[in-house]
């Protein structure tokens, strides 16, 4: 227990506190709000804050316009191709947003496919990808499934008798939706939206890829990487990011708590078939939304097989060189990713199980603290954790490593482990909660000691949860960018996400290779998602909820 707590304090709490302290102290080490005052005095920073909030709100808004109808159709309507809809709608989640950003540039950018066509036909172009518009577009297409999954779950959790009763009282149609269905699904929807909001303002990769820097996350990144580790403004931005995330997370928790109140007793409301014009409109909408949201996949796939693709509607020549490059000439990106993420996922499973066990089965002092710290990473943007690590571990040789932690690859494994720990804690907690204590007690009553009981009864029963949690840690770590690009010590130690970033930044290395890495990342995430579905079964969506 003490060791666990010490570990979490060292790698989660302490770095964040150090960041907080830097932003709140002056040169003599006295408490001051001066840095924050300075932050708000600078128009550049005020604008970054405003842009971040705006992008969060816009992504939620546009995402909802896509997600809520899709969720309603997929839960309440029966039509051919519904399974396809449900599967395709999770695909945006498998493409890392910064990869999607590159792909969308090729399709919707100034000299992308669509605008080239528009120019040719109408001599007219649309600046889809310029500035904040581009960022919001990419993030909307990536994040709307979060809103959809949360809304769909909360919609299918509504007890059918709630709506039947209203019908019995004479209420129907849109009025029924407004008076009963909507209010009952609102908590789940709001929770999903708030989670999306957090992810949007924490997203560093998309704005960097699109070269739009006037947002909080890229500002923090730029201050620290270009001006230096001691630049106070970077820390202030970090603290503001944490506060925004914490507030949203707390609100999401509150709303999800409310959502529990109307859960099912009898099965969900039966989906009803749609016919005629309505069916056509439903299918048209689904097709349009999915078509647009799969554009990034198409773009990245094409790019990965192209020799050159610029200022042309489609790539001029096709080649396998990009794959040769990343699989044989520079194979370390893929290798590193596998090494780091498998290690991190393994550590997460062990830590998550241990923490869940302590939380549910012990009465030791400090359990609540442990819980709080283990949940904290949900609200710590990758940039902030990375800045904290740089601040804490830079410059002193870590015992046993022979060098500062920040100059070894361990720091990446640690960062991934800590950032994804909440997932495995939650998965193990949920699994362990299903195991009634009496199952363990009856084993002990029949003569098995504590260790044997855990080994023979508890562990087999929670394996599913542990594996699922580990898979989610694996999936999300394999495309992590925001702490990765700050923490990678040397080029050869970088994982896939770093590789994509590097390739995409330099025309010399070739963007095709970056795209090929992107395809590998998509495949890794798809594989992980598929396995999670196998383990979780129908509840796979719960992996993407808090």
């Amino acid at each position, binding site marked *: 227990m003490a060791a666990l707590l010490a570990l979490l304090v060292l790698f989660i709490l302490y770095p964040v506190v150090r960041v907080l302290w830097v932003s709140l102290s002056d040169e003599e080490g006295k408490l001051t709000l001066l840095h924050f005052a300075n932050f708000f005095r600078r128009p550049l920073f005020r604008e970054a804050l405003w842009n971040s909030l705006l992008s969060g709100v816009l992504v939620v808004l546009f995402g909802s316009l896509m997600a809520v109808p899709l969720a309603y159709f997929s839960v309440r309507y029966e039509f051919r191709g519904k399974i396809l809809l449900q599967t395709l709608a999770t695909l945006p989640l498998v493409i890392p947003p910064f990869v999607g950003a590159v792909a969308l540039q090729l399709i919707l950018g100034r000299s992308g496919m669509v605008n080239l066509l528009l120019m040719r036909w109408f001599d007219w172009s649309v600046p889809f990808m310029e500035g904040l518009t581009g960022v919001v577009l990419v993030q909307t297409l990536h994040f709307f499934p979060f809103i959809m999954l949360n809304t769909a779950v909360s919609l299918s959790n509504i007890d059918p*008798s709630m709506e*039947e009763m209203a019908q*019995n009282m*004479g209420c*129907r149609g849109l009025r029924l939706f407004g008076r009963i269905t909507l209010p*009952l699904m609102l908590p789940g929807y709001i929770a999903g939206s708030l989670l999306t909001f957090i992810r949007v303002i924490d997203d560093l990769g998309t704005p960097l890829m699109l070269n739009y820097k006037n947002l909080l996350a890229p500002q923090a990144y730029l201050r620290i990487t270009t001006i230096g580790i001691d630049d106070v403004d970077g820390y202030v931005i970090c603290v503001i990011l944490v506060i925004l995330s914490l507030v949203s997370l707390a609100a999401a928790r509150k709303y999800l708590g409310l959502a529990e109140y109307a859960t099912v007793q009898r099965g969900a409301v039966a989906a009803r078939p749609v016919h005629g014009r309505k069916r056509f409109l439903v299918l048209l909408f689904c097709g349009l939304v999915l078509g647009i949201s799969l554009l990034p996949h198409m773009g990245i796939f094409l790019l990965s097989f192209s020799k050159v693709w610029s200022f042309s509607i489609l790539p001029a020549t096709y080649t396998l060189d990009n794959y040769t490059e990343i699989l044989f000439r520079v194979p370390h990106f893929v290798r590193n990713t596998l090494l780091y993420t498998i290690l991190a996922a393994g550590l997460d499973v062990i830590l998550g199980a241990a923490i869940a066990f302590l939380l549910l089965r012990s009465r030791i002092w400090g359990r609540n603290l442990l819980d709080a710290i283990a949940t904290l990473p949900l609200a710590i943007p990758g940039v902030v954790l990375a800045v904290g690590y740089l601040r804490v571990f830079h410059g002193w040789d870590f015992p046993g490593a022979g060098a500062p932690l920040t100059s070894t690859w361990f720091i990446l494994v640690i960062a991934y482990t800590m950032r994804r720990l909440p997932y495995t804690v939650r998965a193990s907690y949920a699994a362990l909660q299903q195991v009634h204590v009496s199952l363990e007690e009856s084993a002990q009553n029949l003569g098995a000691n504590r260790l044997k009981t855990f080994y023979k009864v508890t562990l087999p029963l929670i394996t599913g949860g542990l594996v699922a949690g580990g898979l989610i840690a694996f999936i999300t770590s394999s495309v992590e960018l925001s702490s990765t690009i700050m923490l990678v010590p040397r080029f050869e130690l970088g994982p896939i996400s770093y590789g994509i970033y590097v390739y995409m930044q330099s025309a010399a290395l070739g963007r095709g290779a970056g795209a090929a890495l992107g395809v590998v990342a998509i495949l890794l995430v798809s594989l992980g998602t598929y396995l999670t579905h196998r383990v979780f079964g129908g509840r796979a969506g719960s992996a993407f909820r808090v």
Partner: protein
Amino acid sequence: MPAAEIRLEKISKRYGDLWAVREITLHIKRGEFYTFLGPSGCGKSTLLRTIAGFVSPDEGTVYLDGAPVNHIPPWERDVGMVFQNYALWPHLSVFENVAFGLRERKIPRDEIQRQVQQALEQVGLQGTERRRPSQLSGGQQQRVALARTLVIQPRALLLDEPLSNLDAKLRAEMRIELLKLQRDLGITTIYVTHDQEEALALSTRIAVMESGRVVQEGEPREIYEQPREKFVAEFVGKSNLFIGTVARAGDGIIEVKTEEGLTIRAAFSSPLLPGAAGKKVLLNIRPEAIDLLAPGEEAARLNRIAGKVAALAYQGSFVEYEIEAGGRPIKANVINPKGKRLFQRGEEVAAVFDPKDVALVS
């Protein structure tokens, strides 16, 4: 309050290969308290939901006051339903829950206010208007659900196992309250339950259902005292069933030789008598009709079966005995044991009962 007459004609509904309801024809009169009684899965809820309009039958017609309503959607049927889980909307206050149906009917604001107050008073819940359903106890939630349905003055009241989520004591209280309320209002009521005691206590008539069919319909006493099928005898109350052959018939009494070799005399006035001899019959004797005597004791009852006490359970107001006789158990509930000596396990006893307490099931 308006009270509808409800007629079901040859209602059938199947789910895949399973007949949920099969060719059911019933006639529920104005102001009746009619119960669908049966084990889970017998189709009673499906039948109720058919009347409410949530299930559309594959075949057959539902008539409300003589008019077919198959094509009228639930929201226009005007039959009030109370769900098993009450289905109180968690996002609305008690007041708003009760006012819901009135608002749908575009009743003026102050009239809603008055009617909701009155409905809440009727169920003894005045003062809870501003609370949320989750802040009420199970019994109170039940009353809100009832008030919400009654306030719209529906043509009929449909109750789907409304008491099953309450604890035993509350259930008994609510039972009496429901009975008084229904009799006062005179509203046609259909009640679905698997609890035979509830059905007997509340109903004017009962339809006992099994596997989608009505196996017997009748007043509570009829159902209990003259079950016409083995299923009814076993499902409603406790029973001692005997299969046997009529050995002799005459004098309003038949003598039956049971499979176990016991002789049972039953009183009959029915036209079965002539030529009854040799017929196979199923007899039922309720445990409370059987008294126990010590072997030497005499009694003026025509039936006497010698046996041994296999088990006894003291229940306060009566003692439940299981007697072994002729290689089979016989249940006997001996009433008011106060002062009486209890027979002990293994003791020889005689089970005695009157021929008029023997029911011919089939």
